[in-house]
């Protein structure tokens, strides 16, 4: 350009100067380009360095994070073991249920999700937020169990506005018999925080379902099975892409109980709306045939998670439906205790069976007269008559003669004052009072007058129905005690093999055979000619003992005038057949008064049913007479035993 300009004429000089300047400016600009080149290359090098850092130096960590991003592990809950009665009747199974879960990891905006859930399904906004707030960032939270078909359809059709929400088909524990046998079967529920830390519950996780009560609780480890796990790939919205790996859960073992559910249902129906307990055991093995407690609860409802208000109502129900009266109810044994007393009299040689004691209708001791239930007295009685007629004065006298320590010693030999060890949680031990006990607990010496009350099963003495069942069973077996048990066999799901549950060791009471011969003769007389004549059966010879446990020391006027909660508890303990016993039974009816009238007929019906079931005797006309239940008022008799 410079040259072009110089070839031209002078008039171009100004342009030439301008052009000259431009040329030098271009040279300037082009000279500075080096800086720009270096700058760009430096920036690219810097980016390259950063990429080396991300991909090479930390690449492995980021790969792990990518894996973490896309994989979710889902617990696969095992099917819980099934429960059967001794005949193979199903007592507990599992039905499929659709549960709603939220995987918090996939929820970016909790408020929005909660809003959406509240809008679509009937959730409480605040409750839902509270449920989430306590959880870890990666937790999977079950927010609703047992979805209805409609609810499931709503969730599925809103998948894209409900990130992280998914439906998991799981098992729901079901008890096909409804409320029957609920105390012994128990119920299940989600494991508590506290239990998760215990040794017994190792390997479980939050949300695991475990047995909370009854056999479900005692045999939980066998029943629960082993959880499985599924590894899933999910996309950024938490939607499942594919399954990577599955470890199948293994189902729990099945239990075969010793219970005869036919007898169990019959016993519960006979108790009806009344509070009470029935225990029957096979004295030859300790196998429990009936373990009925009323009032009761619905284990299926409890297992699916009751709303807090209903749970509170159940807990505070004045009739205590959650209490298993057979092992937790502690009652004065009343006259049923005379069986133990009879063993103590003969065993300690306080008196001979043939020794006669005179009963004038009362026993004067110190300044007080202890009355017999029969105003006019029984006259001169020996042991068998005293048992048959339930003569109080006879036992006042022998009790006073042998003293509280002997009574306590024999009571304990029969297993009173201690748990029977039945395979159920929360058994109570009852109370056998003694001098040492009173000193320790009350800080007072034992008064001889208190011995007299204990002699007829009143005072401080308390027992549970299962303990009394063990006493009768031991008597029926001439002193051999088989601890009660509920589970006969376990079928392992892994192998399909049935394994018998080993019998707990039996023990022999250190009381001679002759003593039991005498007592059993007395107990047979109770039914043939004594206080339990109403329970005499044409089908089988029954031996038993009635009892009436005083609730308050109040005895004036006819029983109907006494408020129900102050009325006596009715006891009847029995075994049958008298000569070769196959069943020992205890009936306790709370506030039903006389054992002979309120409790004995129930026991008779159950015994007859048992005999029919085990010997295939057809139900004939002779058995139809006693088909009443406790719901009818039996308090026709106002006299004591």
């Amino acid at each position, binding site marked *: *350009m410079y040259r*072009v300009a110089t070839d031209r004429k002078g008039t171009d000089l100004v342009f030439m100067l*301008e052009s000259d*300047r*431009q040329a030098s*400016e*271009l040279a*300037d*600009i*082009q000279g*500075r*380009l080096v*800086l*720009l*080149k270096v*700058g*760009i*290359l*430096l*920036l*690219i090098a*810097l*980016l*390259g360095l*950063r*990429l*080396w850092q*991300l*991909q*090479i130096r*930390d*690449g*492995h*960590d*980021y*790969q792990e*994070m*990518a*894996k973490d*991003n*896309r994989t979710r592990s889902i617990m696969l809950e095992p099917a819980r073991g099934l429960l059967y009665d001794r005949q193979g009747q199903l007592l507990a199974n599992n039905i499929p249920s659709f549960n709603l879960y939220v995987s918090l990891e996939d929820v*970016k*905006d909790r408020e929005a999700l909660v809003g959406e859930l509240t809008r679509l399904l009937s959730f409480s906004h605040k409750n839902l937020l509270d449920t989430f707030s306590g959880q870890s960032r990666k937790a999977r939270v079950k927010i609703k169990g047992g979805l209805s078909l409609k609810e499931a359809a709503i969730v599925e059709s809103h998948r894209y506005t409900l990130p992280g929400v998914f439906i998991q088909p799981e098992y729901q524990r079901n008890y096909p018999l409804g409320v029957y046998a609920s105390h012994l079967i128990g119920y299940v529920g989600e494991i508590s925080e506290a239990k998760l830390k215990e040794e017994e519950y190792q390997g479980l996780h939050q949300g695991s379902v475990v047995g909370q009560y009854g056999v479900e609780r005692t045999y939980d480890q066998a029943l629960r099975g082993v959880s499985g796990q599924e590894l899933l*790939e*999910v*996309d*950024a*919205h938490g939607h499942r*892409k594919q399954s990577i790996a599955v470890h199948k859960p293994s189902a729990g073992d099945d239990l075969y109980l010793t219970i005869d559910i036919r007898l169990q249902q019959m016993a519960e129906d006979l108790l009806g709306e009344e509070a009470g307990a029935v225990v029957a055991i096979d004295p030859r093995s300790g196998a429990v045939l009936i373990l009925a407690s009323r009032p009761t609860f619905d284990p299926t409802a409890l297992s699916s998670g009751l709303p807090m208000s209903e749970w509170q109502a159940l807990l505070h129900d004045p009739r205590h439906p959650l209490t298993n009266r057979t092992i937790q109810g502690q009652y004065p044994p009343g006259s049923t205790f005379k069986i133990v007393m009879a063993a103590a009299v003969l065993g300690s040689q306080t008196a001979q069976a043939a020794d006669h004691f005179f009963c004038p209708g009362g026993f004067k001791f110190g300044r007080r007269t202890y009355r017999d239930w029969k105003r006019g007295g029984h006259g001169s009685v020996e042991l068998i008559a005293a048992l048959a007629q339930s003569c109080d004065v006879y036992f006042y006298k022998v009790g006073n003669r042998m003293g509280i320590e002997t009574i306590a010693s024999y009571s304990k030999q029969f297993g009173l004052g201690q748990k029977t060890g039945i395979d159920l949680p929360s058994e109570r031990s009852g109370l056998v009072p003694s001098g040492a006990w009173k000193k320790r607990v009350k800080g007072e010496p034992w008064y001889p007058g208190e011995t007299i009350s204990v002699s007829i099963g009143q005072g401080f003495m308390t027992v549970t129905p299962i303990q009394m069942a063990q006493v009768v069973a031991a008597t029926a077996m001439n002193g051999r005690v088989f601890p009660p048990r509920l589970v006969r066999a376990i079928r392992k799901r892994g192998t399909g093999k049935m394994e018998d549950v080993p019998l707990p060791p039996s023990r022999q009471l250190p009381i001679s055979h002759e003593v039991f011969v005498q007592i059993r003769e007395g107990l047979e007389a109770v039914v043939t000619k004594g206080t339990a004549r109403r329970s005499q059966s044409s089908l089988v010879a029954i031996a038993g003992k009635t009892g009436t446990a005083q609730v308050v020391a109040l005895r004036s006027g006819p029983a109907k005038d006494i408020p129900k909660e102050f009325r006596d508890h009715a006891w009847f303990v029995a075994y049958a057949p008298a000569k070769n016993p196959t069943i020992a039974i205890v009936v306790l009816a709370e506030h039903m008064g006389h054992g002979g009238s309120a409790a004995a007929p129930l026991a008779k019906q159950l015994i007859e049913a048992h005999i029919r079931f085990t010997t295939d005797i057809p139900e004939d006309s002779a058995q139809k007479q006693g088909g009443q239940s406790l719901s009818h008022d039996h308090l026709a008799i106002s006299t004591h035993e």
Partner: protein
Amino acid sequence: MLRRGFDGFDWCFFGVVLGILGVGILSIYSVTPANPSQGIPIYLKQSMWVCIGALAFIATAGIDYHKLARFSYIFYGIGLVLLVVVLVAGKSSRGSQRWIPLGPLAIQPSELIKIPLIMALATYYGMKHRIGWLQRLVFPGIIVLPGFLLILKQPDLGSSLSFLSIYVVLLLSVGVKSRAFGLVVLTALLLFPFAWGGVWGSLHGYQQERILSFVDPNYDPGGKGYHGLQSRIAIGSGQLVGTGLYGGTQTQFKFLPEGHTDFVFAVFAEEWGFLGVVVLLAMYGGLFLMGLEIASKARDTLGALLAIGVVSMIAFGFVVNIAMTVGLAPIVGIPLPLMSYGGSATIMTLAALGLLLNVKRRRLTLS
């Protein structure tokens, strides 16, 4: 004047550009769902934009840039009008108003106006000798300012910064008298993405969010650095050799947001690893060096400044976009030139490259 045929340099230039475009379409292809619910898959759309861009390339390469420069201010004026139209009648998307709907399509004036800006500034500096800081700094500043403000108003922080960067680089190339000023601006520009990170990091989270959501409501929807993290995970998990096409879980399972637009580099880095990344960086680097080579051999100031403007525009988008995806700069929403999906940006970038070739092909003229 115009030499027939292409020389080795040209073929090399075409090769690099086509290489980057191909890699871009491949990455977009791998993000495309297997069975798109409706319409044409986006990788095909992008291919279409590339074809249209090729036509624009031929046009801007063919017509002598001196002739084009005569219309520089008119082009720029039209661009400003379009920016006003966007503000008045534009289409809103995720809180900002950037597009003018045109039938089934939409044009993005903030992208298209970048070439008129380069042309206008180059024409301003190239046609007459500008002396003193008033003529060199302030007057061109007045040219830039309305466009810058209109884009910022949309709001589109990324594009407005890109707009500004063109002005700054051209200004520095022409040179201002005060060396100190030049040094300050240059340093600031060089350190911009990184310094921002440092200053930015010292602010509280809510302050950052407040500022960013003011400037760019598009910033990190979903919140709390999720996008940046997912991008880094995608890139990092590519490791040395990458996961292969369709092999990246970050991309395939949609953990990576905007895989076809702003984060297309992360898709590429996940699938092709550090090796692929090095090749890609080399291609871009080569492209920039070739562009600056054209500038250094330009016949006149106008040509040189046009070339510098084009290179600085593309380089700015490249550096800031990658700095953003690797976590060195805040996520401001700048597409990766030649790779990110987008009609206006692709056509505009290719037209700018045509301008670059235009300058090159007219350097060896005899008088």
